[in-house]
């Protein structure tokens, strides 16, 4: 318990640092938002000055920072000019979309990569091992928009098996009442099986595209970690003692190999959540990645700051979960003494 508390307390300075860094970074960006947003060809210097004042950019930087922190303390992340909505509302709308896609893709990647990596490690040089190598090489070297477009071309355009690759649900469908924001969950909670089917069909292609990208590092890491553990002495001892093969692989080898795999998992998850702009673009998926990028390109400070803040928060949380998982997986870390 003490460990958990210490870890949670440690988050406070981390997040405070993030607030300062996001503010400074966004304001260091080259480009003047007032010029950008006074985008009518009849706008003259006076118009730009008026826009600058309206955006609060005429104040000295330190004053702008205090205004920003003041807003944050009221839970106000500011207004996004690019969408015309409050940043908090945008993020609330888009984060579940990203989360849902990431979770499904993550599950697919795990279900494929773990067994594949283990199998490849058990029979190095076999056909399965080669398959693992080919799949992970392809996953790494094919940019996601290429694999996404290929999937769309064959499965939607040519064969018509997949639904139109636009958005999270059929445009004519009625949205379920919003509870979690995850459509797959919300439709089930509302007892709307047809809606669930639609949302599920809609998520398959983007999730596979993303899973392909996540699969490669996971499978490689699993294979390498398993290989390392399988050749160690305690496995030889276990084998010599005539333990069952299943017991050796799952209880002894895999548990010991899990540490590096879990570390990789954490990094991949955070990465998938915030940095899958290309998948989001190709499938018109209303996620946070493309939102942040669009805002960044158009010098829209508030959403960039809000996004960085929220993502940093999530990253910190994911790290916390990973740390806790370490403790469960490997008692030697000594983090949970009673585990």
């Amino acid at each position, binding site marked *: 318990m003490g460990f958990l508390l210490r870890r949670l307390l440690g988050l406070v300075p981390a997040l405070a640092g993030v607030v300062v860094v996001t503010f400074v970074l966004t304001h260091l960006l*080259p*480009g*003047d*938002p007032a*010029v*950008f*947003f*006074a*985008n*009518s*060809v*009849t*706008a*003259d*210097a*006076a*118009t*730009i000055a*008026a*826009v600058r004042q*309206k*955006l609060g950019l005429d104040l000295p930087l330190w004053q702008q920072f205090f205004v920003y922190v003041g807003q944050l303390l009221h839970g106000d992340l500011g207004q996004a*000019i*690019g*969408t*015309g*909505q409050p940043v908090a509302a*945008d993020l609330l*709308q*888009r984060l579940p979309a990203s989360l849902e896609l990431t979770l499904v893709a993550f599950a697919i990647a795990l279900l494929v990569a773990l067994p594949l990596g283990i199998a490849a490690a058990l029979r190095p040089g076999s056909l399965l091992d080669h398959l693992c190598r080919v799949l992970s090489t392809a996953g790494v070297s094919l940019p996601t*928009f290429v694999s996404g*477009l290929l999937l*769309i*071309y064959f499965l*939607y*355009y040519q064969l*018509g098996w997949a639904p*139109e*690759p*636009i*958005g999270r649900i*059929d*445009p*004519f*469908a*009625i949205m379920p009442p919003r509870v979690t924001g995850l459509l797959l969950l919300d439709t089930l909670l509302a007892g709307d099986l*047809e809606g669930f089917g639609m949302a599920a069909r809609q998520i398959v292609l983007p999730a596979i595209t993303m899973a392909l990208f996540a699969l490669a590092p996971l499978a490689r890491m699993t294979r390498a970690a398993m290989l390392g553990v399988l050749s160690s002495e305690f496995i030889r001892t276990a084998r010599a003692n005539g333990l069952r093969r299943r017991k050796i692989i799952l209880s002894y080898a895999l548990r010991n190999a899990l540490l590096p795999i879990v570390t990789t998992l954490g990094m991949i998850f955070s990465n998938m959540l915030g940095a899958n702009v290309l998948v*989001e*673009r*190709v*499938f*018109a998926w*209303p996620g946070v990645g*493309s*939102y942040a990028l669009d805002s*960044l*390109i*158009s*010098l*829209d400070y508030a959403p960039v700051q809000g996004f960085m803040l929220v993502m940093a928060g999530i990253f910190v949380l994911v790290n916390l979960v990973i740390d806790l998982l370490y403790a469960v997986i490997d008692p030697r870390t000594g983090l949970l003494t009673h585990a």
Partner: protein
Amino acid sequence: MNRRELGKLAAATGLAGLAPMRWAQAQTRAESLRILSQAGPNSFDPIGVGVNRSAIQAHWNIYDRLLRFGTTTRPDGTLYYDYYTIEGEMAESYDVSDEGKVITLHLRRDATFHDGTPVTAEDVKWSLDRVVNTPIGKSQFSTGSMTSADQFVVVDAHRLRITVPRADRFTLPNLAGTYPVIINSKMAKAHATAADPWAAEWLKTNVAGGGPFKLEAHTPGQSLTLSRFDAWKNGALPGFRRVLWQMVPNAQTRRTSLERGDADMAQDLPPQDAVSMAQEGKVKVVGVPMSGAFQFIGMNNTKPPFDNVKVRQAVAYALPYQQMFDAALFKRGHPLFGGKPNEADGTQFPQPLGYDTDLAKAKTLLTEAGFPDGFETTFFFELSLATVAEPVSLLVQESLGKIGIRVTINKVPGGQLGTLLQNKEVPFFFEASAAYFADPDYFFRIFYHGPTRWNFGSYANPEFQALVEKTRFESDHAAYEAEVSRMIALAKQEVPIILLWQPALDTGMQTSVAGYKYLFHRMLELRSLKRV
């Protein structure tokens, strides 16, 4: 089998119970339109900070204006706005008196807003007052001599008088432009606050209009649903009852969906897709050269080496125009190279500047300018224009290399190029822009004159400046033509910026969709569309 066919089949075989929602939709498919575009509106208020181009497509169709431009038909059958004819929209008619200084607008007596409230002159006055009380609106309206709310006077419930200090050719076009939407003032005022007297915050996300379409639903960044306003009085009733407009950032995805028959229209097609879609012929591709819009190569006229007119001419002769037009634009547009050199060819502008690729001449000019061995410079372009600008920049680099000008290419995000241009820090660049009004002097006033970043060449020839001032209120037609011809001649001889072409606006649509109309703001006019 696509969704529409499935719907028809389902309806025909009476299976409608299985998935009632979608098939009910399919039956009204003939009356609904599904549009895919790259981006969506970020405001329903035309005047505001950072309002994007997609916003026009929303407020243009949800609101009415007092006046509108007429309609002509292009040789290929596409409807096109006619800048030189102005007709009534919310105003039934208008008359101009006192030597053009007084415009009286007669409102339709039976027109209402979406909520059923009758439209009165009070609403119109509030809406126009709002334009001149907003910085961005005021800077546009002042191009039509409207700067103060005192100029808008309510005569009676259905008449409004606009007074301008002197007759101005741009007053009426400004009233037909994108800014002066007529707002239901009672509704808007209810949401105004002391800090926000013009209800800008509320109107950004809410609609208080009376246009041909009503806003049904909006999910920012994803979709927008419009339905026809059946009691609309200001024109022929739209052909579609319902419009679903979705935002699909990827052009490939928009194209695939259109070609498979799921979408009715796809906007913002890149040139290469427009070409191959037209060749494959599954769908209709309408490409209209954008009037007033142009892409060009800019040079900073105030700093060496581009302050030397011979250097600018040398560059203009050294550009591989035809190659750029073929490879970067896939010929989707109207060339502004070639043509008659040195003097005006008619009084329309933009027009071809009279330069063709002639490396020998370029080399001679460069030597005369005192750069026999060329020089080094940096060429900037904005990443959002990369599909065209990237090949252009490479061809420019290669071709200028032949006369000794060594070019480094610098790609910058859109927001940054604007700032660099504002500060006049860019020596040599590719950019695109557009003027809403077709008068040549309007074009010159924005793009060849003044301290703003829109004077892309920072051009400052005193004779030209005097002509820009003089043509502003020129009422003598012959004198106007002579003055404009002189400005065109100067633009050709001194090439402050090198115009390349007017790109085409390519829109893909099902063959069953008819009535497409090109408008000066380049967004869709939904009211004229119908299914045939």
